[in-house]
């Protein structure tokens, strides 16, 4: 049985088609990253799984139930971190969790779950005074109540600082190890790479790719980046490097040479430079980041998403951004 199953799902709001003929499934126990720039239809899809909005056509199933007719049954075994939510200003953090426990018929210690998401010290404060990140953690705490079989997290890292985003990834990993299926959406790419078994990439209401990170990488064949620190007075002959098989570009600022090439071309590149009399002091390679993959799939109109991705958390993302800066 699939944890989530969409078949030919279309959702129109008036004249606007938010989701177009979407079909995919997420297996039990899988961690599935649902990617795409803002406005690609990710939240609409999640809202259909949760029965907040109803599909115009097609069928949505979750945990073996119809998402609409069996919605309560689905949500009884699902933890949800919704997008665009707000907390109850006058209730304390603990009261929020107690309400979730009551609603799900779970007997447990509310402080334990608050501690797990890192806001135990704010348990007795009213949530109206919480920051965006604390509210996000509180909603996650409510989602984790009762060890759900399925976690649906819509943009879980929004409002979190890099440390918070890392804690979020760790919680996702722990939940997946427990056996839960995790389905989460993001336009922040760094976090996805680290935790997902599989990703789907949305663009303009359709799924443009669905694969493992590795599979996507192979499918698109994006080059790695080779960054070489050079010494000595010899000016590297970039023309010779660029002429090599498998090299797509080479640039230099006099101290470093940045080469974009296939994995198997790296050794030849370094050998060529050394033959030329260049002293290779150090080199490092970085694989194409998911961001590059993402851009390749979604085109340049994903500016907003990638900007946030680079800034949010991932140091490799930052490196890659620097790599592209020195290109002419």
């Amino acid at each position: 049985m699939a944890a989530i199953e969409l078949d030919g799902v279309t959702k129109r709001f008036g004249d606007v088609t938010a989701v177009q003929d979407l079909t995919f499934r997420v297996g039990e126990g899988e961690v599935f990253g649902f990617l795409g720039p803002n406005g690609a239809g990710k939240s609409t899809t999640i809202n259909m799984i949760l029965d907040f909005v109803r599909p115009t056509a097609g069928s949505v199933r979750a945990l073996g139930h119809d998402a609409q007719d069996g919605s309560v049954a689905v949500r009884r075994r699902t933890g949800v971190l919704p997008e665009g939510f707000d907390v109850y200003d006058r209730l304390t953090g603990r009261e929020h969790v107690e309400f979730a426990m009551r609603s799900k018929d779970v007997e447990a210690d509310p402080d334990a779950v608050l501690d797990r998401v890192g806001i135990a010290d704010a348990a007795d404060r009213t949530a109206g005074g919480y920051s965006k990140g604390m509210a996000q953690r509180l909603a996650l705490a409510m989602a984790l109540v009762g060890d759900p079989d399925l976690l649906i997290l819509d943009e879980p890292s929004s409002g979190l600082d890099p440390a918070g985003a890392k804690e979020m990834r760790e919680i996702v990993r722990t939940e997946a190890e427990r056996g839960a299926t995790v389905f989460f959406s993001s336009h922040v790419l760094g976090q996805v790479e680290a935790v997902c078994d599989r990703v789907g990439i949305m663009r303009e209401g359709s799924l443009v790719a669905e694969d493992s990170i590795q599979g996507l990488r192979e499918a698109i064949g994006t080059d790695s980046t080779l960054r070489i620190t050079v010494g000595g007075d010899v000016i590297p002959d970039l023309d010779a490097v660029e002429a090599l098989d498998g090299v797509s570009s080479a640039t230099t600022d006099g101290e470093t040479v940045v080469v974009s090439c296939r994995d198997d071309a790296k050794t030849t590149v370094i050998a060529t430079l050394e033959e030329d009399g260049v002293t290779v002091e150090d080199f490092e390679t970085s694989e194409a980041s998911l961001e590059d993959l993402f851009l390749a799939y979604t085109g340049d109109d994903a500016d907003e998403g990638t900007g946030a991705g680079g800034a949010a958390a991932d140091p490799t993302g930052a490196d890659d951004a620097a790599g592209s800066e020195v290109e002419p």
Partner: protein
Amino acid sequence: MTWDDVAHKDFRDAIRSRWLWALSVVFVGFIGGVPALLFGYYAPAEASAADLFGAAASMPLLGLSLSYSGVLAFVIAFIALVTSHGSIIDERESGTLKLLLSLPHSRLDVVAGKFAGRTVVVAVPVLAGFLVAVVALFATSTSVDLSTFAPQVALTLLVAAAFVSLGVGVSAAARSNRAATVGIFGLYFLLAFLWSLVARGFPSLLDAVFGRLPGVDRMAAETIAELRMVVKYLNPLRAYETLVAELYADTALGARLVKAGFREQAILQESLGGGALPVYFRGWFIFLILLAWIVVPAVLGYLSFRDADL
């Protein structure tokens, strides 16, 4: 069904707001304070609670015919609507509804829970007010007949529930807070201030239409008067008023004619005074109308909310 969890949360949320406490002050002052003042200072010895709460207490003031129970219903209806008009649309606009519906509650649970929670929010201060009233009545040695006083308290809670239902229903169906507010206070204005125009105008209009149709007779004066009264008691405020009056009145007809004009009274006494009242003027039928106001608005609101994209 988890509506009770929603209601519990809603009430817990509400008691944190100053609103509930302000409500309590209003009701304790109005329901409890008025009898305390009246019977403590102005009433003759051997006064009875019926002097205030009963229909006989209808007093001409500023040219309006006001009864204590009539004014009480106005106040309670207003407060019930203010308490409930944002109950669902505010959660929808702020996004707390997403948090609520992320938990295993159906949309029916949400509407039913809101109705129950907000009804309790209004009912608790109303009961506190009546409690103070009872204390005041005993303290001033005013005789209280529990067989009329207790049903009056119950009817008051029912009219409060009817207006909470109206507020929750509109709140569930509205697409924005502004629409809910305009809708709710438009309805309040209609029911509280314009209804006598509707009750008078509708039968006259119908009569005028009949007059223009060939082969249809104009309505008799008694028919028009009866029709006016039928329309009048479709209004929950009026239904409440006449049901309370019936607790104190000698006859059901007397209770139906409370606050009717002289001419109307004369006509209806003449046409209805003889035998048994028609079904639609009997107490239990008017009571059903009041109950319908508790059920129908919330159900209609639910049906709209059930099919909405959030």
